[in-house]
């Protein structure tokens, strides 16, 4: 995996949200993203999976610089995006685009579909006429015909709107596309169509994709590599086959056991209840954040955050269970 060119490298990204009291004094801290690192390889899809509230969407916004990270680096084209001055960053910004989760609030209801897409062009110095022409082209590429383009978002269904959202992301010809729960708000049947569309455009436009979802099946379908997150930290990371065939971290194993299957021939699910509830992000457990729900927790788990350990080539787990089994090398970063 490392022989391939990595197009984006995220290193030790962290973000805390601090709630302030009335006088502006910091009150409480929510650790939304904690020490996340991964590499996105060219033309590959990197899946990020986890429960709601695990920090996946915050991670996406940190990469897009819609939220400013507290710590960490994002290396793109040999430069750290987080430390670039605004002017330089603006020219790079178009290379990384995002498709958002909610099809109903991600398009401006007062603008036509065409204008929603063309706006990205206009703010980048393209003339209105030329911007519209390019917008037509991309709307067509996602399956929205020209006659539809002057309509308004309220007239479309969720799946159609997501197509427009994809066109809008594509129009700046990015190298990297982030899909933040892009199909979660859609019906299953529509999800399939939109996922196929994702695959088609990924190939057609040679994109590298970061695919974020809470749905294991979807991530399995779309991803080459997968990263599992829990309460802001990375618990496991590896290729899709490794994660799905051989989940190492107790949390990942629990996720798989509780995931419903579409396979009608499969035997009845064993009754599996994940212990306990998601701890409050305001007060995460010390050490490994999963330890309060982990069936294999030991004392060492509470002492410190477990380091990433390589259990297989390219397959990393952050769990004290594996820390002993490994040989001398502990892989801290990839």
């Amino acid at each position, binding site marked *: 995996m490392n022989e391939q060119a990595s197009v984006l490298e995220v290193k030790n990204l962290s973000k805390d949200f601090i709630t302030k009291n009335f006088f502006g004094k910091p009150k409480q801290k929510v650790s939304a993203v904690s020490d996340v690192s991964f590499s996105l390889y060219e033309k590959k899809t990197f899946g990020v999976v986890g429960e709601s509230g695990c920090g996946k969407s915050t991670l996406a916004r940190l990469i897009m610089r819609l939220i400013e990270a507290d710590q960490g680096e994002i290396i793109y084209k040999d430069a750290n995006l987080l430390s670039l001055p605004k002017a330089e960053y603006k020219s790079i910004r178009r290379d990384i*685009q*995002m498709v958002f989760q909610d099809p109903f609030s991600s398009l401006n209801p007062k603008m036509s579909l065409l204008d929603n897409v063309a706006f*990205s062009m206009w703010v980048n110095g393209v003339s209105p006429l030329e911007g519209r022409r390019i917008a037509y082209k991309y709307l067509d590429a996602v399956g929205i015909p020209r006659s539809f383009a002057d*309509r308004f978002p309220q*007239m479309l269904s969720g799946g159609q709107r997501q197509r427009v959202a994809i066109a809008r992301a594509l129009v700046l010809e990015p190298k990297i596309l982030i899909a933040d729960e892009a199909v979660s708000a859609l019906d299953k049947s529509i999800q399939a169509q939109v996922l*196929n569309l994702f695959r088609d455009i990924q190939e057609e436009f040679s994109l590298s994709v970061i695919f974020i979802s809470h749905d294991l099946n979807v991530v399995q379908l779309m991803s080459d590599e997968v990263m599992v997150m829990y309460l802001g930290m990375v618990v496991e990371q590896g290729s899709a086959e490794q994660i799905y065939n051989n989940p190492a971290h107790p949390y990942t194993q629990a996720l798989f056991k509780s995931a419903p299957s579409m396979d009608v021939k499969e035997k009845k699910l064993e009754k599996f209840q994940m212990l306990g509830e998601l701890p409050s992000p305001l007060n995460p457990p010390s050490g490994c954040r999963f330890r309060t729900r982990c069936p294999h927790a030991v004392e060492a788990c509470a002492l410190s955050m477990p380091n990433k350990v390589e259990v297989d080539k390219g397959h990393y787990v952050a769990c004290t269970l594996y820390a002993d089994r490994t040989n001398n090398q502990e892989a801290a970063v990839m």
Partner: protein
Amino acid sequence: MSSSAVEVSDKETVNLANVTPAAATAEESFARKAFRSFCGNKFALVSAIILLTIILSTILAGVISPYSPLEGHAKDRLLPIGSPGHILGTDEQGRDMLTRMLYGGRMTLLAGFVPVIVAACLGGGLGIIAGYFGGRIGTLIMRVLDIFYAFPAVILSIAISAALGQGLLNIMISIAIVFTPPVARVMETAVKRIRNQEFIEAAKSSGAGPFAIMRRHVLPNVFSDLFVFSTSQISLGIVIAAGLSFLGLGVAPPTPEWGVMLNSIKQLIFVDPMLTIVPGLGLFLTALTINICADGIRDALQVK
């Protein structure tokens, strides 16, 4: 989108036959739809017609008035309503009431509309900036405007007018100042609602600067809130302007303006009460039709 729900199909172009019925009228713009909805509202339509008549006749005052508004013959003073040649009677100096109403209406309407437009631009701009940026800038703007908010509108406008002196321009300025903070507050609230929607995030990630976003994404979505609120201020503006003139702070006699006319006629209420009602009725009718129209517009803007 395809008729069989379960099959996984390749990317397909949208089939127009399956499109929602609303799309049949898709070509119609929002403005046109709102207009049709407004016309369907009988009260609003009648009020709009009356209002337009009032406005038009004041604009055409020079053309349709039978007399000059400033000339009066003492021998004709205080003729009652319905006298030959003076359909609305004459005032205490023998000037024709109809003519003075028409000319006076100009001042009154100007004093109602212009400050509202100014307050909408100024207050709207400040409110949108405060709402979009939030943080220190927003707090600074809103707290400064709160200083003005501390005073009741009428008292504040009297104070400002007294400081500026007489004249139509000065009362327009003072009313505009008084109207700006409420508009800003309404706009700030509206923008706060919109600011975290995903299409704003999408616009930011395409590299748009804050002013491009405010102009093309924020403003169209808060415009109807602004419009509705501002139209509600118009009738208030007219009444305040007339009130200020009544108190002697606005237009000076002999220039006709409905408030000034009320002032000079008020002592005649025991002599000829019907005459004193005329400017008051004009104010009432204008304010009423404006309010009904504003309600109608607000309802029409709700159309999807």
